[in-house]
């Protein structure tokens, strides 16, 4: 295994952390980590090691290199189990990312358990990946969707949520953190209340897992989906965690190699968890890379990461607020993850993005896959800066300068 960088041993220091990420040699101020993160050498090395030393498929073969590959592949499963504090690694399913995880639940759990007239509760903060699968399921089954609204600060209206829970929803689905405006939802309390109301609960952890971490047993939900590529891992690997009893009662999602016990012309028996849900050749190198990313995050310490992001976020909110005509969406910094979504009077977010890009600042403009929220906020799009372990104040300074320049141009 590539030896771990010394970063982890020292008190957290983003300037040092940054050195582990080859991308920063480009000089770009990367402010789009809520979209996808950069990846440290530790992760790239883990994948290269696979490609160079034990490149082979997993589970299927009895020769040595394949056994090493299998061990590493399954090693990630155990690392994930530890990272999210799941009861068993059997509950940890490899997916391409959050979207596949949610779709898996919508197909395999939803089509079996949701019936006409059933209520599905979601929130206006959700990412399209946690909206559209339920719209489709509702349309197919005749179930009803109800949305929890937000208040003026972009925080969920809990009294409305509780009123909806009285209608005994079959499923409640919510994000731990909003990718669009950074709201940290009171997920634990909401899950608790939903469970008491008898609902099955899915938590979209796409932003939660990378920035806050999670203890799925403490959180109390039934399903938890997240993406490796947003937490320093490679593209192509993500995780769905589910409670064993639920996963066992579900039909497979995709079918094919590796998810079977025995295939006969007359019919097929399926493999036990977790392989039942991993049909076909998986993203072996990427799963191994995800394991390395988790190792790296654990080395930094999730609390350090959250604290660092809070600092940067506070700094960014203050600095941006000083610009005239700039309006920030979402809650105060105490209930906000490392995301600052804003609009600048008179400059469309896309124009702003183009101009700051010419200053070497990568700023996201758009609806952030949260169109219902944009409509609710009554904006066509926002500009969004999002932060991670490697973000430094200089990145924020460059953003502020670039925005000021755009204001000069558009004045």
């Amino acid at each position, binding site marked *: 295994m590539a030896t771990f960088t010394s970063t982890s041993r020292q008190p957290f220091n983003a300037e040092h952390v940054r050195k582990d990420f080859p991308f920063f040699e480009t000089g770009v101020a990367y402010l789009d980590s809520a979209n996808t993160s950069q990846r440290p050498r530790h992760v790239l090395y883990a994948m290269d090691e696979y490609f160079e030393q034990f490149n082979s498929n997993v589970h299927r073969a009895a020769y040595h290199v394949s056994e090493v590959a299998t061990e590493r592949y399954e090693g990630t499963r155990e690392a994930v189990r530890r990272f999210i504090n799941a009861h068993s690694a059997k509950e940890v399913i490899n997916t391409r990312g959050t979207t596949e995880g949610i779709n898996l639940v919508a197909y395999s759990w939803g089509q079996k358990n949701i019936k006409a007239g059933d209520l599905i509760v979601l929130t206006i903060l959700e990412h399209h990946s946690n909206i559209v699968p339920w719209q489709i399921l509702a349309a197919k089954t005749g179930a009803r969707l109800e949305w929890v609204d937000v208040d003026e600060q972009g925080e969920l209206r809990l009294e409305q949520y509780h009123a909806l829970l009285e209608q005994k929803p079959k499923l409640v689905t919510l994000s731990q953190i909003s990718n669009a405006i950074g709201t940290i939802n009171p997920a634990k309390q909401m899950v608790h209340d939903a469970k008491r109301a008898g609902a099955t609960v899915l938590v979209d952890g796409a932003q939660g897992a990378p920035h806050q971490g999670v203890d799925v047993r403490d959180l109390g939900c039934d399903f938890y989906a997240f993406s490796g590529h947003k937490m320093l891992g490679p593209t192509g690997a993500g995780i769905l965690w589910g409670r064993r009893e639920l996963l066992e009662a579900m039909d497979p999602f995709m079918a094919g190699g590796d998810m079977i016990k025995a295939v006969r012309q007359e019919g097929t028996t399926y493999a036990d968890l977790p392989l039942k849900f991993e049909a076909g050749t998986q993203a072996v190198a990427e799963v191994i890379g995800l394991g390395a990313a988790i190792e790296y995050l654990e080395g930094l310490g999730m609390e350090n990461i959250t604290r660092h992001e809070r600092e940067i976020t506070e700094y960014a909110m203050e600095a941006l607020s000083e610009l005239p005509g700039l309006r920030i969406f979402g809650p105060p910094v105490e209930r906000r993850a490392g995301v600052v979504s804003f609009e600048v009077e008179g400059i*469309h977010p*896309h*124009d702003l993005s183009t101009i700051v890009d010419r*200053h*070497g600042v990568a700023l996201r403009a758009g609806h952030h896959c949260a169109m219902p929220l*944009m409509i609710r906020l009554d904006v*066509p799009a926002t500009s969004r800066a999002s932060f991670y372990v490697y973000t430094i104040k200089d990145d924020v300074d460059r953003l502020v300068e670039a925005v000021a320049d755009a204001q000069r*141009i558009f004045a």
Partner: protein
Amino acid sequence: MPGQDLGVDEQFYREYILDHYKNPRNFGHIEHPTYTHEEDNPLCGDVVGIDLLVKDGVVDDIKFHGRGCAISQASASLLTERIKGMSLDEARTIGKEDVLSELGIDISPARIKCALLSLKVLKAGAWGLGEWPGEEEG
């Protein structure tokens, strides 16, 4: 690489683009248009609608409305200026390259859709073209 291009913004958002954005020409509606059509670019929320009044095969009047980024709105404004008074036949020959060269700036792939939205409205709507080749971009 970016980061080195400081100072080119003024060039990129040329004076006259900003001028067309802030003071759009032919902005508004025509009361009884020969053709009218509106399209949006859902990805970024840009909207452009165009009303055409055609007399004797000539574009007698044209107006646009909409909202969105400077590129989409300036490009619409420029397009209306260009087309007004043209014969329909001539107007039909206007292509992507014409629009882009008229903008006179280096449009990045992600913004091409903004720049071409007004042309798309004209082609897909007013001239009833089903498929719009501009979709291939971006």
